[in-house]
Structures are given as structure tokens and as C-alpha cells.
């Protein structure tokens, strides 16, 4: 018995003694077997991000001969995965200063990949049918007047401000408190739940107030109007507890794993050049989310119709 245990232990030591097993060099077991060039892209949970990846994937596969794997990861863990090389690129980032400091500036495991060409904006929205009936609801100063109409079972005696996925950037709790609003922030917990609830409200033309962001395909299905919050000024959101201003307009960024950026060849060069517009992205998002095309079909459809745009990315 003992002899065997020692032997086993020795074998283990031998095995582990050979060298370091760097987890950052380990690919997914499902990656391509034939040793083909492969790229892994992170897809975040919202459809806009799926649209970026759909087009990039289609071009990488059909014009550059790569094999593309996609992984769905939340925003912050995606940075971590990117740093470890589990993912080669994030195509749409909404601004994570803390992670940027850690991985891009300090550890240098992630390299900035330039802008996506799309500007993102987070805000509070009411459905347009409600804003038309009550034009003054679009200013935060009048929100308290409508609290009673926006009440739900979850919000208790207050009006409901619906927030979405826990992975999204939000100051809403602080905003409600600091602007002294008679509202309760209700977390839908996921974007899917939030969208489903908004569509149900819209079907019945019920009023609602929600945290939402643009560009987003849902605007085409449920037209919404933004509620004006106190104007954003540089640094007004520095202290999360004291925020009392609107969200900024963020030019969305791409990030690449540093090793991939250096030695990723054509794929890395292509992903750095990849840059399109809000309309382009929305077009593809709608095909995926509303017409229920698969991302691949949607990517193909867009690529077929916009040759001049993507030619520039490949050169």
C-alpha cells in the first residue's frame, strides 16, 4: 500500500516538476482540432454586442479563412477572460476605468483596440406614447408628479424605476436619492426580463419609467423618449454615492488581448480596423432580435449589402 502511495506521489511530482502549466496558454477544448487559425470573441449579453460579433465573425470566417469561437461572458469577467487570453477581443466596451487601469496600464495584458464607431448613452426613458400625453414627464423635475401612475406591486407606494442586468453600469439608486424622487429602483435582474416586461407594458400602452441605453434595437419596436436629468459634467459621477447628474455619452471601445494584438496577424489587424455606425449596428441587431435571424444569417445579409464599408477593414 505504502509503496504504491509513494510511487504515485513521485509520479505526480515528476509530472508537475517538468515545468509550469500556464493557464493563460490553454485554449478551449472545443477549439478547432486541425490547428487552423482560430479567434475567440467575447459576446456580451445584449444584442448590439451580438451584432458586432456576427459581422466580425462572418468576415473572419468567409473572407479571411479563420475559425471563430464565441463565448458569452458578462462585462467585468470578460475583461478578466481577455487578460487571461481565454478571449482574444472585446468589440464593445462601455467604459470600465478600474479594469482599464489594472489590465491595460498596470499589467499590460490588454491593449486598446480603438473605437467601435458607435456612441453609447445610458439614460432614463419613458415610452413615447406616454410622453406625448404628458410632455412635461420628460424632465426629471416633474417626475414626482407621475409617481402614482408608475406604481407597481413591487415598488410599494412609490413609482417604479426599472433597472436591468446587474452587470450594467448604473447610478440609479444614488440618483433617486440625491434628486429626492419618490421612486423605487426595481432590478429586473437581467436584460431579457427587462425587455419582456417593457414589451408587455407597451402592448397595453401602460406608462413606465426605465433605465435604458442607446443604441438598442428595442427603440424600433417600442419608441421611447429620454427623461432629462441634470446635465452631465466631467467628474460629476466621481463619487458613486453623490451622483446627481445624467450619464455621459460614451464612445464605445474595442479591446484586444496583448499577445493576440501582437501576433494575431490579419485577424488582429482586421479587428483593430473594424469600425461602423450606430445605424449599421441597429440594422443587424434588429435582424437578430426581431426577425429572429441567426447571427450568421444576419451577418451575411449585412455584409452582402455593405461591401464598400467592410472592404476598408480588410485592406
Amino acid at each position, binding site marked *: 500500500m505504502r509503496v504504491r502511495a509513494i510511487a504515485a506521489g513521485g509520479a505526480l511530482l515528476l*509530472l*508537475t516538476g517538468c515545468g*509550469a*502549466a*500556464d*493557464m*493563460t496558454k*490553454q*485554449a*478551449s*477544448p*472545443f477549439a478547432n*482540432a486541425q490547428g487552423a487559425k482560430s479567434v475567440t470573441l467575447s*459576446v456580451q*449579453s*445584449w*444584442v448590439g454586442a*451580438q451584432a458586432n460579433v456576427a459581422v466580425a465573425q462572418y468576415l473572419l470566417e468567409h473572407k479571411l479563412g479563420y475559425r471563430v469561437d464565441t*463565448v*458569452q*461572458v*458578462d*462585462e*467585468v*469577467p*470578460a475583461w*478578466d*477572460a481577455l487578460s*487571461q487570453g*481565454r*478571449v482574444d477581443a472585446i468589440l464593445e466596451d462601455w467604459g470600465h476605468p478600474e479594469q482599464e487601469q*489594472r489590465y491595460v496600464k498596470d*499589467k499590460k*495584458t490588454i491593449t486598446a483596440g480603438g473605437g467601435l464607431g458607435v456612441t453609447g448613452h445610458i439614460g432614463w426613458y419613458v415610452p413615447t406614447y406616454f410622453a406625448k400625453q404628458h410632455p412635461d414627464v420628460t424632465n426629471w423635475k416633474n417626475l414626482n408628479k407621475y409617481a402614482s401612475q408608475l406604481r*407597481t*406591486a*413591487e415598488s*410599494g407606494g412609490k413609482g417604479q424605476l426599472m433597472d436591468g*442586468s*446587474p*452587470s450594467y453600469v448604473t447610478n440609479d439608486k444614488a440618483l433617486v436619492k440625491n434628486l429626492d424622487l419618490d421612486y423605487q429602483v*426595481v*432590478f*429586473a*435582474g*437581467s*436584460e*431579457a*426580463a*427587462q*425587455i*419582456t*416586461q417593457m*414589451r*408587455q407594458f407597451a*402592448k*397595453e400602452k401602460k406608462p413606465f419609467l426605465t433605465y435604458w441605453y442607446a443604441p438598442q434595437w428595442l427603440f424600433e419596436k417600442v419608441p421611447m423618449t429620454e427623461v432629462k436629468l441634470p446635465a452631465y459634467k466631467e467628474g460629476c459621477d466621481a463619487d458613486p454615492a453623490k451622483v446627481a447628474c445624467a450619464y455621459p455619452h460614451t464612445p464605445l471601445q474595442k479591446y484586444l488581448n496583448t499577445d493576440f494584438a501582437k501576433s494575431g496577424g490579419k485577424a488582429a489587424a482586421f479587428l483593430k480596423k473594424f469600425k461602423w455606425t450606430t445605424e449599421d449596428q441597429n440594422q443587424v441587431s434588429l435582424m*437578430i*432580435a426581431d426577425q*429572429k435571424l441567426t447571427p450568421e444569417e444576419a451577418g451575411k445579409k449585412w455584409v452582402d449589402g455593405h461591401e464598400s464599408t467592410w472592404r476598408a477593414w480588410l485592406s
Partner: protein
Amino acid sequence: MATVTASTPRALPSGLLRHRAVHKLLLIALAAAVLVPLANARWASGSWPSALTVDLTSPLSKASDWIIDNRDSHPLFLYFFGYVSNAVVISVRAVYLVLLGAGWAGVTAFGALVAWRVAGVRLAVGTTAAFLACGLLGMWVPTMQTLALMVVAVLASVVVGVLLGLAAGLSRRMDKILRPVLDTMQVMPAYAYLLPVVLVFGMGVPAAVLATVVYAAPPMARLTALGLQGADKEVLEAVESLGTTARQRLLTARIPLARKELLLGLNQTIMMALSMAVIASVIGAAGLGDRVYQALASVDVGAALAAGIPIVLLAVVLDRVTGAAGDGTEPRGRAGWAYALAGAVVVAVAGRLLGRLDWPDSWTLNIAEPVNRAVDWMTGHLYSGVPVVGGTADWAGHFTTWVLDPVRDGLQGLPWWSVLLIVATLAWLIGTWRTALTAVLAMAAIGVLGVWTSALDTLSQVLAAVAVTLVLGFATAVAAARSDRVERLLRPVLDVFQTMPQFVYLIPVVALFGVGRAPAAAAAVVYALPAVVRITTQGLRQVDPAAMESSKSLGATSWQQLRQVQLPLARSALLLAVNQGVVLVLAVVVIGGLVGGGALGYDTVFGLAQGDLATGLVAGAAIVCLGLMLDRVTQPTERRTGKGA
């Protein structure tokens, strides 16, 4: 299916019980009279006193930062975790390549032939149909990825589980150490495992496999230990008298005698691994779970269902086949196995020669569209404005205002010491002072962790959902116990709901009940109902037919019969159903965080989404404590005799 309780409760004579109950109550009242004024004088506050909390934020954040900074360079990661991760990647890849190499025809043939050898022709046909359905739904490759991951995870779980089980089954001291650990893991929701694993291993398959192993190994360990301890003493003595060595005894007598438990353990492990395979998609498990998860993001129920059905089919087939293996008495001949293997190889080679390795694209069926249309219609017509009964949205509103809110406010309004007192009383009445102590300590730990208020919010949701589950479950079970036809009709429905990944029904649930705690409760009811119905039906059916006959001859109506004979005699099964209902409902609470359940579930999801160890781990730990407390309060324990508690 998700959990088993090892100890079966034994009904005590009611006179003795009442007597002891009074004793216990008196003792508790006495203790309360001494302790409560003390506690109240020292920390007078309604909610948990802040003086008694420990803030773990800074140490946990530091730990998390340390891991991230050292993950790529520290020897612990390079020489240990790195190899573990590497081994997982290599083995999953190997299995995956074999599965792909065998082609769809080879895999289907192999599955069918194994099912035939183990469980007979009917299951072989079922297995074939299940595999073909996976292909037809256009899910062949994801199914193979999930299968590859499952094979590795289940094998690892079985090895780990059997080793732990052997240790616990052969050594009383190990048993004492392991028992509470395994008990705790049993009530731990899957989501709570993900965060620490991800932190160490990063996103991806290794983390997913390891989380699955940690989740699925405990039932194997418990049942192995149970099987070894339960071996017939006389047989063992007889074997010993033959002059065998300890190892011979283990291999030739104890393990074969525990065969049934071992196979049941395997069955449980497979089921738990499969349910984890879906949840682990949140941390990059790929395969079917990932398809479900991605479909959730584009609010596409049809696509989610297309990936969910293969999971259900795999689960049902694996459950039946391993279940049949457990029931089978004599091992069959080797020749049959040889034929089966040869047959599978022939089919695989034939598939290879014909160049038909991948499932043909033209053979797929698109179910997403009709399903989405059906769901739209349903949610469109039931949501509100239904005459007389009102729409589902109204029900949800009423349920929230009239049930959830009062229970939550009531619980949160109670002084903290009285919550502990109630827990102690309930747990002691139903169990022993040990279980009561565990329950109270678990509840107190929640307070110490500083999440008292949200834990009580979660508790209120659990209680409300359990109440609904029990009402619906008992009613269904009574119907099923009275009619074979109902039971037969019910069986496939229960199978589907028990194994369907919860991600699939999150969207319909929100579309029906809106965002909030009501849909979270609804999802929990859907998940917990099958187990409650099963256990109760079984309990009611096992009531001695003689007792039923004699009550009938005394002229009892069928209602009287049910109330006065069947239910009391099935008491232990009913209690077990309550216990399972509570544990399963709690398991869905985290998922409920995704549809607006808030409280601890949301915090866990938040921690995972933001990589925030401090929030996520504390919430996860609190859920575990809550589970432990609820389990102890609802699980009747026989009076422990001398051997380990």
C-alpha cells in the same frame, strides 16, 4: 431527483412525542426567559445588531485582487491549478474528439446498444429517438460538447465521491468529519459555487467542469457511505470467518453488497451534473447550456427550448438507463456486451466511410418560430383582462401585495432574537438539540455576515413559494395516488419540468407575471413541484392496503379515508416532501434574481456579473446558511442512537 435524504424518518408513537415536545418547549421557554432580556438589553434593535456583524468586504476584495495579480505567475497556480486545468482541458478534448470521430450514427448506435444491454429494448429505442431528436433540432454539436463535458465531470465526481464515501463508510471518525460537510453541500445552490471557481480558473471549460464536480460529487459520497454502512453484518462476519484480508472483504463483499446504493449514487450524480452543465454556461461551459443562455439574451424562447429539449432528453434517458441498472438483479453475460460494442464500431466505421460524420444540415427542424408564436399568443391573452378570474399580471400583483409583502414585512419586523427563538423551537420540536443548534447557528451566521434584512426578504419568498408548491403538489399527488391513469399522464410532464433548464422558462414567466418577486416564486414553484408530487404520490400509494380496506368497510367516505387514514399514515413521506420542496425552492431563489427577485439571489448574480467576490460570496454563504437552517427545521431526525450524529 436533485437530492436525496439519506435518513428516513421514523414515526414515533404520538403520546411519547407529545410528552417530549412539551419538555422541549418548557426548556426553550426557560432559556428564552434568561437569554432574551440579556440580548435585548445589550443590543436592542429590531434588525440584527450592527455590533454583531463582521464586514468581510476588505479581506475578500484583497483576496480577489491577490488571485488576479498572481494568477499568471505564482507557483501555486503554475504548478497546481494550472495542471488541474490542463488535465481537464485535455480529457474533455479527448472525449469530444472521440465523439466527433464516431460521428452521429456511431454515437447513437453506441448509446442505443448500451441502453439495450443495461435496460432492455424499450429504452434502447428511446435512446435512439432521443439522440436523433438532438440532431433534428440542429443541436448535434452542442449536444456532443455537453456530453464530453459531462463524461469527464461525472467520472471525476464518481472517483471523488467514491473515495470520500469509502473514507466515511469505513472509518467512523472520517464519517463524523465528512457528514456535516456533505450535508451542507447538499443544500448549497449551484450558483454559489461558480464565483470562487471562476476566480481561480478563469472563464471556461475547466472552471465549469470543476464547479460541476464539486456540485455532483456529494450524493455519490453520501450514498457510497450509506451502502457500506448498511451492509449486512452477518454476511460480513461470514466472510471474515473465511480468513479474508480487509481489502478482500472490501472488494468481494462490502462493495458488491452496496451495489444498489452505488448505482443510485451514480444516477444522482449524473442528474446533478447535467443540471449544473446548464448553469455553468454562465461561466463559459459552452455546449447546450450556452445555447440556452444566448437565446435568453435575445429574448428568444423558441431557440432556448430547442437547446433545452436535448437536455431534457439526455436527462430522461440517462436517468432511466442508470435507474434500470440499479434495479437489475443479476449481471448479464459478457458476450452481449461484446456484440453491442462490435455493433457500435461497425456503425461508426460505416458512417465514417460514407462521409457522414457531421449531422446533415438539411435534416434539421426549426421549432423556434412556432414556439415563439405560441408563447406570444399565450402571454398576450393571459397577461391581463381575462374575464372573471383576471389576468396573470393581476394575480402576480395580488400575490405580491397580499402574500409576499406582509410575510416579508412581518419577518423583517420581528426582533432579531425572536427569529432565532422561532428557529430553535421549530428545529428542536422536529429534531434533536443538535439539529436545533445547527439551525440557530446558521441563522446567526447570516446576521454576522451582515445580510440579515435581505436574507429575511429571501426567506419570505421561499416560504410563500413553498406554500404554493405544497398546496398544488399535495392536490396533484392525491389525484395521482387515486388514479393510475392520472399518474401515467403526469409522469412525462414531471420529467420535463424537473429537468428543463430554468433559463428556458424565465422569459415566459416574466411575460406572464411581470418583473418582480412573483415571477421568481413562480419559477421556483415550477421547479420544486415535480419532486413534491413524486414523493407525496409514492408515500400515499405505500399506505397499507389493508388499512384502506378496513376503513372502507367501516363506511368511510373517500374524503374521510384520505384525511384520516392515508395522510396520517403517509406522514413521513409528506414531511420529506416538505423538506425537498424547501430545498428545491431555495435552489431557484438565485435564478429568481434574474427576473427581479432581488435580495440574496440578486446579490449572488451581481457578484458573478461584476466579479465582486465580497458581494457574491457573502450572499452565496448566506443562501447556504438559509438552506441549512430550513433543512434542519423541516427534516425530522430519528433519535440518534450511539453511533455518530
